[in-house]
């Protein structure tokens, strides 16, 4: 039960990745580093005496600004380029952010204990910590807000229009540069919120990013780019499957299982696409 909720945090990071990938055709490798920075934001607020729950929106806002600046500085140069260029650029950013965080915050492992209780059922055999339920709720909430935002708001419509056809959108008077910047900043904000949840639930350190990047990548590949609900489902499924594998095979195979699953999904997707004559750009 508790294992299922772990997937909620993966799902959050995956929303952002799906958004950036779908709209900008950029595979954002520094996804995990946004999560890490969000975690540190929550941690430092916690140290200053602010409750970590407050850290979630604050981390989102700060990371929004950070994402916007990053877009204006680097990402706008790679939007229309080959997919590999964007992967290289964001990979470089990911290394840069890791090292900067290491310099600024130190390599120590930190955690912001929100003091949430754990619920017990069946004579302590099933335990669910409240913080994971909060994470789960936050993932659902952010997913719903995102879906509404994309469907209803002007900006959301502009984002969707740009995703469908950037050139046409530009002809129709949409400032696609601004749309891209907002999309990227939004992604950073969602990851920041996820990071605050990570700091509350587990622990943070400068090098925690990669597992989140890899898992969001998997979830997006499985769920597709335009489907928020599918992303959530895939995220939860991955969280549960991964922990189940750790339980059955032993923790040493937990990561191996995730990567094996990634390969399996890629293969399956290829055959499936061949059969349905689909086209994935």
């Amino acid at each position, binding site marked *: 039960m508790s294992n299922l909720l772990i997937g909620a945090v993966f799902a959050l990071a995956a929303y952002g990745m799906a958004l950036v990938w779908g709209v900008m055709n950029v595979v954002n490798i520094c996804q995990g580093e946004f999560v890490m920075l969000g975690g540190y934001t929550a941690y430092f607020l916690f140290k200053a005496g602010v409750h970590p729950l407050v850290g979630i929106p604050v981390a989102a806002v700060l990371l929004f600004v950070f994402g916007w600046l990053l877009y204006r500085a680097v990402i706008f140069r790679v939007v229309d380029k080959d997919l590999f260029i964007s992967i290289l650029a964001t990979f470089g950013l990911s290394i840069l952010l890791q090292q900067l965080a290491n310099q600024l915050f130190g390599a120590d492992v930190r*955690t912001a204990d929100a003091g949430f209780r754990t619920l017990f059922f069946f004579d*302590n055999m099933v335990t669910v910590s409240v913080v994971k339920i909060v994470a789960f709720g936050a993932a659902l909430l952010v997913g719903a807000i995102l879906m509404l935002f994309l469907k209803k708001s002007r900006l959301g419509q502009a984002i969707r229009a740009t995703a469908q056809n950037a050139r046409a959108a530009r002809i129709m008077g949409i400032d696609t540069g601004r749309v891209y910047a907002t999309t990227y900043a939004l992604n950073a904000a969602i990851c920041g919120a996820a990071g605050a949840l990570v700091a509350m639930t587990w*622990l943070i350190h400068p090098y925690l990013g990669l597992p989140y990047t890899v898992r969001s990548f998997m979830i997006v590949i499985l769920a597709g780019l335009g489907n928020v609900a599918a992303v959530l489902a895939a995220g939860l499924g991955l969280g549960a499957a991964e922990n189940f594998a750790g339980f059955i095979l032993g923790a040493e195979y*937990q990561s191996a299982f995730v990567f094996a699953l990634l390969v399996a999904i890629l293969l399956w997707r290829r055959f499936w696409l061949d059969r349905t004559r689909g086209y994935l750009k």
Partner: protein
Amino acid sequence: MGKPQIRSTLALGALAILVAAGVPASAKVEGDTIVLGAAVSLTGKYSTNGKNTQDGYELAVARVNEKGGVQVGDKTYKLKVVYYDDESTPARAAQLAERLINQDGVKFLLGPYSSGLTKAIAPVTEKYKIPMVEGNGASLSLFKEGYRYLFATLSTTEFYLKEAVNLAAMTAQAAGRDPAELKVAMAFENDPFSQDIRAGVTEDAERWGMKVVVDDKLPPELNDMAATLTKIKAVKPDLLLVSGHTKGATLAVRQTAEMRVEVPMIAITHCDSAQVAETLGSAAEYFLCASQWDRSLSYRDDWFGSAEEYAQLFEATYDYSPPYQAAESTAAVLVFVDALQRAGSFDTEEVRDAIAATDMQTFYGNIKFDETGKNIAKPMVLYQVQDGQYKVVAPTDWASAKLIHPRRLPE
């Protein structure tokens, strides 16, 4: 700027270059100063412990110089250490060791922080036959290569949690149970450090006839131990052993409380550097923690006095309480001082032989090297977190508190 000024600037520049080029060429002894060399991690992932290492070396140097210096033959010398930042990367550490030996002419090396970096430097010191005394490379594999010039002041990894297994066995015997009935669960990170520890405890568990019921290898990028702990909860072991650096320590403490994993005795490593008692509060109560050293131990030496006096001097100098990483580094300098005095010479071979024959007590513990160069005279220490304080409960000869067993869960 007038012409003469430009000329004098140029001349100054040239002079600066000459001086810069000239200094490193001098050898191990400059006038009345013995120069030691060390590559330490001042940046990168080991920067915290790298600074502990450097502070440990510097405190020893300052203390020795203040007390008159090192007597070699009939002359006394001051100590000095040349440092470089190895950026926490093995390749850089090996380069810097070459540089210290070839360019700076250093003849005696102090170790870097971590087993990995020591492993990178040891082949270099071996090649140039330069003695290295280190306090922060604990991996047993370092001492299986037959290195002649490598010496370590700390206890090697296989000893880290042995004491916990023995403590569990003795507690069982005292309660009238057969230690062979005990069930042991183990979760060790899949890296050389933790796997060495695992080898050590497996050996002892087998000797007592204990049954190993869970034996998980945690992947290095693991951020969650839920899967392992679910298993442990189901099999109800009598002893749980966890090692995975600070990350493993924090996760073990946090998640056993969160998932209410009831094990009578839990022993982990790195809980002092992870500060589990300070940051996680009651969740850390009654955890056992392996440590190389503690300030409450009753060792002493002529340079620093007792362990507690060392700790106070350290606090007064650096404004933080000394972790064992600093203490074992200080001890490494003391080994050189002792060996140089006994050798009465700067010949690297004679100093090496003097180091190999070391048999001394320091504030950090007794030091005596076996033929592979590791210290076999100092046992590991086990703390228990009691009321938010780290109390030494084993080995019983030096213990300042009594073990609380079985562990009760915090409310």
